[in-house]
């Protein structure tokens, strides 16, 4: 261990190489985690249902008007059990398109209209859920990111698109869409939606006859994907999206993004690993004579290899730990900065942290292994003569 201190500059540079690699792994890995959680949440949410909209909105969140009357047409289709009309709109017109994660949304549907079919479990950090009795009232349940951004809790009054709402509940973080959602009663959402339309369009739209999307729960035993195709066939104006469609559309593109992110991190790690190989090879060459002494006085090859591999592993571990610390710092700072604008980019999980440090330690040890093996196989007498 003391040998690490012998060539301080070189050891420091090597540790720095590993540090940068692990830093990249932690930051990009956390970004990938966040994206995964988002996609995972959507995938779970959409798995057992079909989502309808007037156009092919990304991820099923569309804000184009859809006549409420469509509900009855959909309900008549074979295999449809329950139809829940919803209104979804951007909380703020200015954001959305340019955001890496979900934009903040306002979502309204009649509480309980899913007739107990919704299986996606929401947990409440504060207050209560919306009920059917809330229809007609200006109340809201906030997702965790929105609550943090607005610094609001149950009992506070907030402003949604110029209208005051009383916060009656706040959700636990889900790491996916609900975090960025303010849930309001259906009627209130309809009013907000119509108010958000351009004046020309607003003319022909009745607030109480509008929705933007519908969630269809199939009858038991009915394949959601087949039902989606059937709905699209019977109602040409409607785009139906099943869980399978979601996975294909969103899942595959996110998987590519993930692969790119992890790829960048791995490349930087390989570079870091090569610098450990270089450092160990040089430091072992310098110590040839010392290794000769140890072999001559009875140090076994195994002992020599072990000492050197432990040393290289330690370099990897130190680099990994510093990289993790710096990565965690960046992730925390950027997330804190992003929270005020509602954009949380990273999710640093314990798994990612452990993987990063473990990976760098093993990488270091492996990098040290080859030169160590070479050194241990040297003839002690020639090693002793080495200058």
């Amino acid at each position, binding site marked *: 261990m*003391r*040998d690490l201190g*012998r060539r301080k500059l070189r050891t420091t540079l090597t540790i720095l190489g590993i540090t940068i690699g692990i830093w990249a792994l932690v930051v990009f890995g956390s970004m990938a985690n966040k994206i995964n959680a988002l996609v995972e949440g959507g995938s779970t949410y959409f798995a057992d249902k079909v989502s309808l909209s007037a156009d092919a909105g990304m991820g099923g969140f569309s804000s184009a008007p859809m006549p409420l009357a469509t509900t009855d047409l959909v309900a008549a289709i074979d295999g449809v059990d329950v139809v829940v009309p919803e209104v979804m709109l951007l909380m703020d017109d200015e954001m959305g398109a340019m955001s890496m994660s979900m934009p903040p949304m306002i979502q309204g549907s009649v509480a309980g209209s899913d007739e107990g079919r919704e299986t996606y479990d929401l947990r409440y950090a504060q207050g209560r859920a919306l009920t059917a009795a809330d229809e007609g009232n200006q109340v809201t349940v906030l997702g965790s990111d929105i609550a943090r951004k607005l610094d609001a809790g149950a009992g506070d009054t907030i402003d949604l698109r110029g209208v005051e709402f009383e916060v009656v509940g706040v959700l636990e973080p889900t790491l996916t869409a609900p975090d960025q959602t303010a849930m309001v009663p259906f009627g209130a959402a309809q009013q907000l939606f119509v108010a958000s339309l351009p004046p020309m369009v607003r003319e022909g739209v009745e607030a109480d006859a509008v929705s933007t999307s519908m969630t269809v729960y199939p009858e038991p035993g009915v394949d959601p994907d087949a039902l989606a195709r059937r709905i699209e066939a019977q109602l040409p104006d409607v785009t139906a999206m099943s869980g399978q469609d979601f996975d294909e559309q969103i899942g595959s593109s996110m998987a590519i993004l993930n692969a790119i992110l992890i790829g960048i991190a791995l490349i930087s790690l390989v570079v870091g690993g090569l610098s450990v190989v270089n450092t160990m090879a040089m430091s072992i060459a310098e110590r040839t*004579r*010392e290794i*000769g*002494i*140890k*072999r*001559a*006085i*009875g*140090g*076994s*090859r195994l*002992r020599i290899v072990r000492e050197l591999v432990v040393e290289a592993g330690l370099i990897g571990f130190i680099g990994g730990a510093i990289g993790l610390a710096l990565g965690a710092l960046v992730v925390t700072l950027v997330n804190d900065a992003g929270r005020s604008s509602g954009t949380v980019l990273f999710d640093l999980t314990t798994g990612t942290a452990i993987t990063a440090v473990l990976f760098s330690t093993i990488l270091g040890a492996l990098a040290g292994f080859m030169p160590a093996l070479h050194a241990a196989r040297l*003839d*002690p*007498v020639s090693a*002793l003569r080495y200058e």
Partner: protein
Amino acid sequence: MTLLDGRNLRKTYRLGRSNTVHALRGVDVSIESGEMVAIIGPSGSGKSTLMHILGLLHGPDLNHGPRPELSFGGRDMVELGEGERTRIRAREMGFVFQDFNLVPTLTALENVALACDYAGIGGAEARTASLAALDLVGLADRAGHRPAELSGGEQQRVALARALVNRPKLVLADEPTGNLDSERSSEVLATLRRFNREHGQTLILVTHDQEVAAACDRVIRMRDGRIHEPAVPAPIALRPAPALERASA
């Protein structure tokens, strides 16, 4: 009692395609327990090679001649693998080198304890034994110093402590006084001599130094990879000093 017995010891080094050096051309040698033996001879005479083979650092050549034999403490050493030879070096032999060969990052005490560690002794026991060994060479008060903080003579005495700490059956010393001035040289030689007299420590010394050779029980003179003449008591071997000077030159 014979501690070490070698027969037909040969060693050829191949330096290039057509350049081979016959370092040992067939040597028979026998060392008794408790003996202090000097191996002398001019450079290139094969004395260091002989020491490396006796110290199990190299194996003798098996081809091109009668089968070599090497027994140490009654056991055959020729057939042993590298792992077993390493174990015997660690537990039953001690080494002293011309340029001390201490591990520069370790203190005197840690250098000595390293030999204990390799012999399978660790912890407090190793510490006690190492301190005792340093005390025997008169360096107990320097235990915490690094080699760079010690004089040449002190470094060689640390190396001596390291060689002796496991109470080895055999200590091999390659030019132990070669890098020391005459005063330090005498100190180291006196320590070796004392170990031989008081503890019956068997010692093999490879040396150019007349004074060192004269202090030994027996002198083996080597020349051109062979033992030059029958081993005789040191005073006789060394008597015609001018003749020896000529032989060594």
